[in-house]
C-alpha cells in the first residue's frame, strides 16, 4: 500500500479537474482501484475502467467508457500486460464546477493516521478526532482503508469498522 503513489493520484485528480478533463488515467493498483470504486459509489466520478495506455472506447449512449463493454470487449489482464494497465476515470462536472472538489491526502507516507470507530463517530459528527478534522461541509467525505476494503467514513461507522484514513474529498 503505497501512500506515495496515492498522493500523486490525489494531486493528479486535482489537476485534472482544474484542467476540465473528461477522462483521465491513473496508475493501476488494487488500492487505487478500490478507492476509485468508492468514489464512484459516492457519485464523485462517472466511470472506473481498467484499460491500456490509450483511452478505452466510450459507450455510445452513456458517453463515457464502461467497465463491461459488450461491443468492444474487455481485454483480460495477463502477466504480459499487467504492467501497462491503467485506471481510466471519467470525471464529472455540474453547473460549470467539477463534482470532485479537492482531494487531499490525510495519512502521509511518513505518518499514517488510523481511526477507530469511536473517533470516526466524532469525525462524522463534525468534531476533530485523532488529528483528523471533522466533516463539516455538505458533501464532504473521508475515505478509509479497512478490513472490508476502502469505505466512506459514514459507512465505516455504520459497519463499526476502523481503519487507515486515506483521503478527504470536498
Amino acid at each position: 500500500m503505497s501512500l506515495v503513489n496515492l498522493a500523486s493520484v490525489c494531486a493528479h485528480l486535482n489537476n485534472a479537474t482544474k484542467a476540465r478533463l473528461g477522462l483521465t488515467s491513473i496508475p493501476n493498483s488494487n488500492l487505487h482501484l478500490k478507492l476509485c470504486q468508492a468514489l464512484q459509489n459516492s457519485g464523485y466520478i462517472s466511470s472506473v475502467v481498467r484499460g491500456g495506455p490509450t483511452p478505452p472506447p466510450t459507450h455510445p449512449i452513456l458517453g463515457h467508457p464502461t467497465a463491461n463493454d459488450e461491443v468492444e470487449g474487455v481485454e483480460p489482464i495477463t502477466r504480459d500486460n499487467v504492467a501497462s494497465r491503467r485506471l481510466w476515470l471519467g470525471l464529472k462536472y455540474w453547473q460549470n464546477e467539477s463534482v470532485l472538489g479537492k482531494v487531499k491526502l490525510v495519512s502521509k507516507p511518513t505518518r499514517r493516521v488510523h481511526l477507530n470507530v469511536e473517533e470516526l463517530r466524532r469525525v462524522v459528527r463534525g468534531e476533530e478526532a485523532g488529528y483528523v478534522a471533522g466533516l463539516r461541509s455538505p458533501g464532504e467525505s473521508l475515505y478509509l482503508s479497512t478490513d472490508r476494503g476502502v469505505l466512506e467514513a459514514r459507512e465505516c461507522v455504520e459497519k463499526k469498522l476502523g481503519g487507515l484514513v486515506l483521503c478527504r474529498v470536498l
Partner: protein
Amino acid sequence: MSLARPARCLFCSFSRAATQSTRVPRRQFHPSPAQLTNRKPKFPNIKAPEASSQSVPKPEDFKPYTEEEKAYLAKEYSAAQLEAVKAGEAAIDPKDLAEQCNERDDPLKLNYVDDFSVIEPGIDRHVRAPESNSDYNFKLKSEDDFVKDFGRFFAEMPDNATGADFVKFTDELRLTHGKEENELNPHSALVPDLFGPGETIDEPRVEERKTAAEKGEKERSLQAEEMTDALKSLLLATGYTANQIRDFRLKTLVSHSVVNQTRLGKVRRAYRLSIAGNGNGLLGVGEGKSDEAADAKTQSQYRAIRNMQPIPRYENRTIFGDVSGKVGAVELQLMHRPPGFGLRVQYLIYEMCRAAGIHDLAARVSRSRNKMNTVKAAYEALMSQRDPEEVARARGRKMVDVRKVYYAGKV
C-alpha cells in the same frame, strides 16, 4: 572553446544531432535534457467538453430526396402534396438545419423542449394585458346601433360587392361601445388580470380614479422634490420603492481618506465602504469615493443596495458548511454553529451577519486583518457556500437533512 566541452568534428556541427538534447536555448540547471516543445502527457487525456459532446449534424447530413424516395413518396402523396413537400425542402437551407436542429448542451440550456411559440401559463412569466386596455365603462351595443352599422355598410357598399366584403364587415363589427382594445385584447386565461401595484378588484369609478391619480401625483411630486437623481436612478434600477430602501439595514463599515499624488500636489478624497441587507437573506457591499465624505457615504450605500444578492442560509440562521474566503492577505474562515450560539465574530463580520439575517456563526480571520479586505473576504466566503441540493444533484445521490427529518421540519 572551453576545455570542458570536448572537441567535435567541424562537419558534425552542420548536421543536427538526432536527439534534441544539444539544442538548448538557455542555460541548463540540471543534466536532464530540456524539452523544447510543450510537454505532452505520457498518457492521453480527453477534455470534458469533447467527452460529453454528442454527434453534431453537419450540412452534408441533410441530403435531398433520391429518386427511390421520391417514387415512394409519390405512392403516398398526391402530386400537389409532393410539390408542397419539394417547395418546403427547397425553402430550408441545410446549413440552417445543421445549426438549429441540434440540442443545446451548454449550461444555459432549458430543461424542457419548447419552441416558444405560445405562452404557457404554468411555466412562462405572465404577460399582463396592458392596464390601459381595460375600459370599465363599456356598454353593449343596442339593436338600433347594429341597424345603423348595417345601414352604413349597405350605403358604403361598392357596386361589385362580394361575399368577402360582408365577411370582412362582420369581422370588423364591434359589439360594444367604448375602448376598442377592451373588446379586442381583453384579459384571458393566457393574459390573466393580475393586479398591478395599487390596483384592486373593485376598481373605482373614473372620477374617483382621477382624483386618486391626482393625489398620487401630488404625493409623488412632493417626494420627487426631496429625491435626488442618484436615488431616483437607484429606484429605477432596482425596482425597490423608497419605503423599502428606508427599511434596509445600511452600515458604513470602513471610512478613510485616500490620496492621489499628482504633479500639482496631493488630492485627498473620502472613501467609504458600506453594506446593505434586508435582514432576511439579502446582502450587498458597496464602495464609494468622493471629495465630500457625505457624498461618498451615500454613493457607497446606493452601490451596496444595487449589489444586494441572496445569501444561502441554513434554517435562516446560519450557513451551509464551513467556508473560507481570501482577498489580498486577509484569509478567513466562517463556521456554522448550532442554534442559540450567537454571533461570535469580529465586529465587521458581525454587522454583515446582522444585515444578512445570520444569527449563529463563528469566524476566524488569519494573516492580515485589513478592514476593507475582511469585509470583501467575508462576502466572498458567504457567497461560496455549497447548496446541499446542488451537491446531491451533482453526485446523483440522495441527501437527507437529518435535523429536518428528526424535528419533522419544525426547526
